[in-house]
């Protein structure tokens, strides 16, 4: 079931990359996709815990919000960089991550890094070590909105 | 013609990243510079593909975007195992 889903995704990627509809190339595409599914299944044989699944529709709602945050954070950091006297107040702090699944924790950690001004340095179980360029960025993260939104991506099991 | 400003900006940024790579001062600053250089290269190749009128050449930018980060992971592994060895040496003494 899972393998079939992977195969369909790979096949779609292949078709969009290639755009050639010749029988030979299509045949090679099928072989390639099967090879990648085989590779992926060999890799996942050693997977320990899967955790609750990601909800794709929620991801669609999450991405525009993340985009907005990224744009705002970019403007903020650019303002800092271009100010003649860079008044910096960097903070290094620990942050709780409430996500249960590994995937959502990764999405949360990478979202923190993707917004300039905050940077995930380490993930240790429930907590993350974060570096912030300015205290305001740290406060925004501590308010927990991004954490909540990233947790909402998980299917409630 | 519309591609020139962005190409100039990219090359200028490459020069800035190169300056950071040469100045250091720490090893990690150099890694940062290389990594930044890689992203700029992805963008440069993508823009150039359109400037040359060959959008199918985007494969190059795609290849870089996919595998450029492997080098940084190797750096992490390098420092990690070096640190472990040094810790053992400190304990040994």
């Amino acid at each position, binding site marked *: 079931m899972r393998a079939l889903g*992977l195969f369909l995704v790979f096949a779609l990627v292949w078709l969009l990359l290639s755009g050639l509809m010749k029988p030979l*190339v299509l045949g090679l595409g099928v072989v390639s996709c099967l090879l990648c599914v085989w590779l992926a299944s060999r890799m996942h044989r050693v997977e320990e815990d899967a955790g609750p699944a990601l909800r794709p529709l929620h991801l669609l709602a999450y991405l525009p919000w993340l985009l907005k945050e990224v744009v705002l954070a970019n403007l903020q950091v650019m303002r800092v960089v271009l100010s003649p006297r860079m008044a910096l107040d960097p903070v290094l702090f620990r942050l709780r991550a409430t996500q249960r699944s590994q995937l959502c924790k990764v999405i949360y950690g990478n979202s923190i890094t993707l917004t300039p001004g905050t940077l995930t340095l380490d993930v240790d179980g429930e907590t993350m070590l974060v570096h912030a360029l300015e205290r305001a960025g740290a406060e925004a993260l501590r308010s927990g909105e991004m954490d909540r939104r990233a947790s909402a991506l998980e299917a409630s099991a | 013609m519309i591609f020139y400003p962005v190409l100039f900006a990219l090359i200028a940024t490459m020069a800035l990243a190169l300056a950071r790579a040469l100045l250091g001062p720490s090893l990690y600053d150099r890694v940062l510079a290389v990594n930044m*250089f890689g992203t700029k290269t992805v963008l440069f*190749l993508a823009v150039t593909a359109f400037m040359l009128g060959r959008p199918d050449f985007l494969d190059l930018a795609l290849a870089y975007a996919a595998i450029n980060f492997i080098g940084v992971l190797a750096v992490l592994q390098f420092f990690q195992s070096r640190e472990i*060895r040094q810790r053992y040496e400190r304990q040994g003494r």
Partner: protein
Amino acid sequence: MTLIFGVFLLILLVIVALAIVRSEDLFAAVMLSGIFSLLMAVNFFLLDAADVALTEAAVGAGVATVLFLGALALTGKEEARHTVSPGGRWLALGVSFATASLLFYASLENPHIGDGSAPVHQHVAPWYLANTLPLIDIPNVVTAVLGSFRGFDTLGEVFVVFTAGIGVMSILGVRHSLVELSGAELDARQRSLRHHLIPRIVGRGMVPLIMLFALYVQFHGEYSPGGGFQAGAIAAAAIILYSLLEGDDRGRELLPEWLLRLMVAGGALLYGGVGLACVLLGGNFLDYSVLATVPSAGQHLGLLLIELGVGITVTGVLISVFHAFARRASR
């Protein structure tokens, strides 16, 4: 305008090259050589050599840094001091200066970039351009030249890669199970990025995608930039990524060593075998036209097979070299 960009990038290239030579910190030199490779790729691309640029991209971005760091873990971080007498230094300077002046003088005679009346554009190049479509029937002339018109050269290149792989393995891959490992070495060896959640999860997702992209590059060499060399390097990058994340031992579980050895030899064998098959079917060595009833179909089949051979050998060699370094890295 492209010329200005090219000149600027070449200036950066010279600066990087000087810095690499000057640097005594080998780690810095490795990082700078990464930048060198990126600059080379951009330059190749500006000169419209997309296939070469893709090779540089695949090797420089994915594999070279990893292998350099592997070598660095085996040696020290600083360049060894070697003493040269003042006389020797002046001699070296003189030789370098003379060679450089000769090369510079020779370059004055070179045709300008893109000059249509250059000798290379008078002799074989027009023939290649005119005959790729009628004889081989594929759009990418580079692949036609590489695989068919000059297939013999490429066979040689594959055997160079093959030999290089054998060489590295025979120097580094010697089993040393008799050597007693200390706790530090054992610990450092078993260390992977397994406990780093973010790289691990992201890497797991990327490995099959990189592999799919490698196969796409492999099988589209006849239509767009790419082919066996590029695909082999990208595929090797995918497996190396997995080995970095999960540890070398698990990487060897994913693709066992007997399979890698089979790939190293099998790819080169496939290339040579196609050539022999052509001879047996009554053609010349590596003249694929005889492989099918229609000559151009035979060319297609031959190109597909030899590119596959190249890809398999390159993948096998690069992964084997990586394993050879990783196994030794903690000594």
